[in-house]
């Protein structure tokens, strides 16, 4: 190595150091400048609703809430999975959004990372919210946001197919009667049920009603009850009641399969109600049955409105004003109607059912629902969930037996 090269390396190292310190200064100063704006100026809102563009009701609501709080709103929409990472990176760089609308199982993770302010700090009033919904956003006895709406899973059915197969929807009360109904549908030449068992959080979300419906606990994935839930799905695939494509289905592609009109049942959420009306065939909904009768607890879905930690704590009061505006009864009704969610407060739920009696099934399902991070699982949930969807996939593809797959999952999740 010649002297010139050595000098060159030393210089480039010096430049790297200088550049990185410059970058560090840059990020902190930008955080400071946005902070100094104080009560007026621009407030950033991040949400996971890329389907709503600037002219949508949701975007207009945000703007009007900003105007009411005396600030301008800059909204950015991300894909749900992308939003968590973007938020963590932004928090690391010291410029998180002022208001963050985020999927409920992520709240405890973000709170644990110190990204979110508790409702004690940001003064958001959560007294009206149903406790089982609020629980998903709680960690160590503190709440870290307010649900904007809730959704959960139920079974949509195709009226024409059930009629042709001679199945009465009311007769489906447990797993045995559901499986019997699927057998009849198949015998009538139609397809049985579609759901999503993809290797992401969506797969776990869709599996949990059956898992909990069997009486299994997330703390013990290898229990006999858990095995019975996986076996139920596996047998449906084996007997052709469910298509093989469920292994790669997202909830959207699963819905597309149901929308072809070839399937008797689809496990999906409230957010598909608007699409169901457009499907072109008669549909109905029933709650997902538990193994031996009754309604299975489904996981709560839906987003929380949170206020990320800022260097300038003076911004919280305006953020609180925006959040309160977004979640006041009138706006909640409008937003939850657009998102086709069930409202998180009883008062608004009553209004929703009064406007659309078909929502009654969903309101009841939301009452019975359970947060994924509840039961004090918090940040342990993501690890368990990953093992759970892996196990379900391994069992459905036949690469492992349900029992082996779940035993492996339990030892890996610990």
């Amino acid at each position, binding site marked *: 190595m010649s002297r010139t090269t050595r000098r060159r390396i030393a210089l480039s190292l010096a430049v790297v150091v200088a*550049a990185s310190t410059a970058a560090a200064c840059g990020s902190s100063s930008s955080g400071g400048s946005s902070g100094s704006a104080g009560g007026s100026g621009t407030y950033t809102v991040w949400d996971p609703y890329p389907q709503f563009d600037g002219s949508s009701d949701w975007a207009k609501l945000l703007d009007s809430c900003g105007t009411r709080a005396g600030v301008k709103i800059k909204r950015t929409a991300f894909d749900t999975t992308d939003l968590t*990472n973007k938020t963590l990176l932004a928090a690391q760089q010291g410029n998180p959004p002022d208001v963050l609308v985020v999927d409920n199982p992520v709240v405890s993770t973000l709170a644990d*990372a110190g990204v979110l302010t508790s409702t004690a700090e940001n003064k958001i009033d959560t007294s009206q919210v149903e406790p089982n919904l609020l629980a998903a956003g709680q960690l160590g006895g503190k709440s870290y946001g307010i649900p904007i709406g809730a959704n959960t899973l139920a079974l949509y059915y195709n009226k024409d197919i059930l009629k042709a197969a001679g199945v009465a929807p009311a007769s489906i009360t447990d797993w045995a009667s559901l499986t019997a109904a699927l057998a009849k549908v198949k015998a009538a030449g139609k397809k049985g049920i579609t759901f999503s068992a993809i290797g*992401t*959080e969506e797969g776990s979300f869709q599996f949990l009603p059956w898992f909990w419906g069997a009486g299994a606990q997330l703390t013990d994935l290898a229990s006999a009850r858990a095995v019975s839930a996986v076996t139920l799905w596996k047998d449906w695939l084996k007997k052709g009641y469910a298509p093989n494509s469920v292994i*790669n289905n997202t909830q959207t592609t699963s819905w597309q399969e149901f929308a072809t009109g070839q399937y008797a049942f689809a496990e999906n959420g409230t957010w598909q109600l608007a699409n169901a009306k457009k499907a072109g065939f008669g549909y109905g909904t029933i709650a997902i049955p538990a193994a031996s009768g009754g309604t299975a607890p489904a996981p709560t879905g839906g987003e929380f409105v949170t206020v990320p930690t800022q260097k300038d704590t003076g911004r919280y009061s305006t953020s609180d004003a925006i959040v309160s505006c977004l979640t006041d009864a009138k706006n909640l009704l409008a937003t939850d109607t657009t998102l086709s969610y069930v409202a998180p407060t009883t008062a608004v739920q009553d209004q929703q059912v009064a406007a659309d009696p078909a929502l009654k099934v969903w309101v009841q399902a939301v009452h019975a629902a359970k947060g994924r991070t509840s039961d004090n699982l918090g940040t342990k949930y993501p*690890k368990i*969930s990953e093992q759970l969807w*892996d196990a379900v996939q391994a069992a459905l593809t036949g690469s492992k037996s349900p029992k082996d797959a779940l035993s492996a999952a339990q030892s890996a999740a610990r």
Partner: protein
Amino acid sequence: MNTTAQMPDASAAPGGDGPAKPRRDPAGTGRGTPRRPRSPQWAAWGFLAPVVAYLGLFYAYPLYRNIDLSLRDYTVRSFVQGGAPFTGLGNYRTVFRDPTFAPALEHTVVFTAVSLLFQYAAGLALAVFFSQHFRLSTTLRALFLVPWLLPLIVSASTWSWMLNSDSGIVNSTLGWAGIGPVNWLTSPSWSLASVIIANIWIGIPFNLVLLHSGLQAIPATLYEAAALDGANAWQRFWKVTFPLLRPVSAVTLLLGLVYTLKVFDIIWIMTKGGPSDSSTTFATWSYRLGFGTLLPQFGPGAAVGNILVVIALAFGLVYIRAQRKQMSS
């Protein structure tokens, strides 16, 4: 941690012999610096500064951060607030011991090797075919570029529709021919093959373009001479085209290797690396560790990313070595 960090390093590797070459000849004049007045040297540094700053800011610093990430025990909390404890090679040990490591390595090797082989063979065959200058040759060649021009999300989503087990066009065509349905994307024994097929289709145009331009550089007189010597078409290909195309082939294969190693979008969109890790490569595994779950594991994710960088770098060095040998001989 991310795929962008791999590219610069890998592409910097072939360029690595760039500075080496000028050093060879102006070495004598360069040594005479003490004679010169000082100001021109400052000017030289001034001209150098933008490039060095650019390299430092966009290449060296991200790479340094990625190595740093892989050597610390990051939790979500320490990622945001700093103060992650240094754990040395702990993350690498975690990754090597992970039950996903062996299958991911195997899939990465198979995916890269099979993709490269078929892309190169098909690209070369098409390049030779299109160098014949028949009518419509340009139009047809332009059509072959379509896979390259399409956004990856479009082509990957289309492939995943076509290969759908129940409603895909591939299975309905096979069914028409009397072959039972194949679970292309949902069976552990087929998912890797499916993503390889899609990747080959996407990679052919790249090979076609590079090899076609390489063919243009071979003088026509050589073929005439070979024909006069009585060489048939097959012999002309193996004795003239193939040897003269070797430098271009080497670059094509190296770039192809780097691109294929880091392929992520196609696999993620089509199978998410599943079912049960059956199509997981290092690239998708790294993403899944870092971003794919609700609770990111940045440390191991960065470690897997660095392993990929090292593999790409190793092949870059092999290429430079081969090129040096060729130049000296």
